[in-house]
């Protein structure tokens, strides 16, 4: 396909490369957070707002994880190289939603009792797995700026950022375990299928190469 980028793809690339693409994507990515804050302060989160808030933030973390992992397959198969411009920002939104998900859990479920949080992390495998996924996000967020990439060298940086695959597996496991009490795996299955095929696509390409 190289060199013969189809007309439609080139139009999409035009949009993605536009000066306003990043600010627009930034505002869109903030909307779920803005809605949740608005809903929390206007009593729109139902009878158990704390639970609704923690769970929505977790689901938005997963959705952004799906988005960030979809970028490479989409830009390669659809011929949208300009999509790469948004990858770092989407990745940082994964980190942002993961942080406020954890913060909301610590605040509303644990009332900021750090000893209780530590005991909970050790005791409950599903919390432990979620916490590990968040821990693994830390080095990725910390090395997300250009100077870090230069300092590490592209190769080592890329190797480090492959941690995102493990984060995806842990995040789905966290969600699966959370839902296992209700034997309610429909949504877990959807996320597992999407993330699984995004990872399988990478594996397939590597084996083919």
């Amino acid at each position, binding site marked *: 396909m190289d060199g013969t980028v189809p007309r439609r793809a080139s139009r999409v690339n035009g949009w993605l490369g536009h000066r306003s693409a990043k600010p627009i994507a930034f505002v869109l990515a903030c909307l779920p957070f803005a809605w949740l804050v608005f809903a929390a302060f206007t009593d729109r989160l*139902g*009878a158990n707002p704390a639970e609704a808030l923690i769970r929505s933030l977790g689901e938005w973390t997963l959705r952004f994880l799906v988005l960030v992992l979809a970028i490479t397959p989409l830009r390669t198969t659809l011929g949208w190289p300009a999509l790469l411009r948004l990858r770092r920002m989407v990745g940082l939104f994964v980190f942002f939603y993961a942080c406020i998900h954890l913060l909301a859990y610590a605040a509303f479920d644990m*009332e900021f009792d750090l000893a209780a949080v530590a005991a909970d992390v050790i005791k409950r495998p599903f919390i432990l797995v979620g916490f590990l996924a968040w821990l693994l996000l830390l080095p990725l967020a910390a090395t997300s700026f250009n100077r870090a990439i230069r300092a590490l060298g592209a190769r080592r940086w890329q190797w480090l950022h492959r941690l995102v695959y493990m984060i995806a597996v842990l995040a789905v496991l966290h969600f699966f*375990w959370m839902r296992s*009490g209700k*034997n*309610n795996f429909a949504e877990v299955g959807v996320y597992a299928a999407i993330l699984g095929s995004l990872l399988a696509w990478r594996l397939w390409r590597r084996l083919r190469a």
Partner: protein
Amino acid sequence: GKLGSLPGKRSTLDGAVTMEALTSYDDASSYNNFYEFGTDKSDPASYAKTLKPRPWTVAVEGLVNKPTTFDLDALLKLSPMEERVYRLRCVEGWSMVIPWVGYSLSELIKQVQPQGSAKFVEFVTLADPKQMPGLRSSVLGWPYVEGLRLDEAMHPLTLLAFGMYGEVLPNQNGAPLRLVVPWKYGFKSGKSLVKIRFTDKEPRTAWNVAAPQEYGFYSNVNPEVSHPRWSQATERRIGEGSGLFAKRRQTLMFNGYAPQVGQLYAGMDLRKLY
């Protein structure tokens, strides 16, 4: 609410009327676990409209001298209606305070005369796919079955409820009749009952079959025995402090009904028989 009125005389039974602030009717009728209508807590309020609470009969059978199929109207007249304000503690870690209307299940049990061999009572919920869209999912084995030991079922606090907040039960809360066992986690209180069966064997209850390591037959509220995936030491009282910033409450042994029901479990290891 705006359903048919069903008044009850305030109960004089020990422990039957807590003075705690009531949960709002809106919260109590919109935040429900009733998997026959879906697993999300907003599903029952959205989808239970298809349930037809009349006509309704309840078959009371098994090891009894007088097996009887009761019509709902006969059950409504079987004993005087009482109002009981109970704490409801869900196994998920939240709680409510609800004014139920009904009478002690023991009033019904006396009518059918259990035989000496009867040791347990099984409660079966309606399972009609035409009325209950949630039955399409295999989250649990249907019909939903719950159970009590006979002495638990005979305890005066065990309530056969037909109404709440002075009205008949909304469909999503288990119309037209349900059980309320206030010292056990909420899932022990079967909704929309169609069958009550007396047996000599411990009933195979729905959650115990689905996840035996997480849900035992007894499922008494117990702050000292954690659920494998979360602590049961505290609970979130729904509606308190506008929800988000309320402090969690300490969960009480037997949901605060220890003086009334503690003796039922004397000598039992409640860590093993959770």
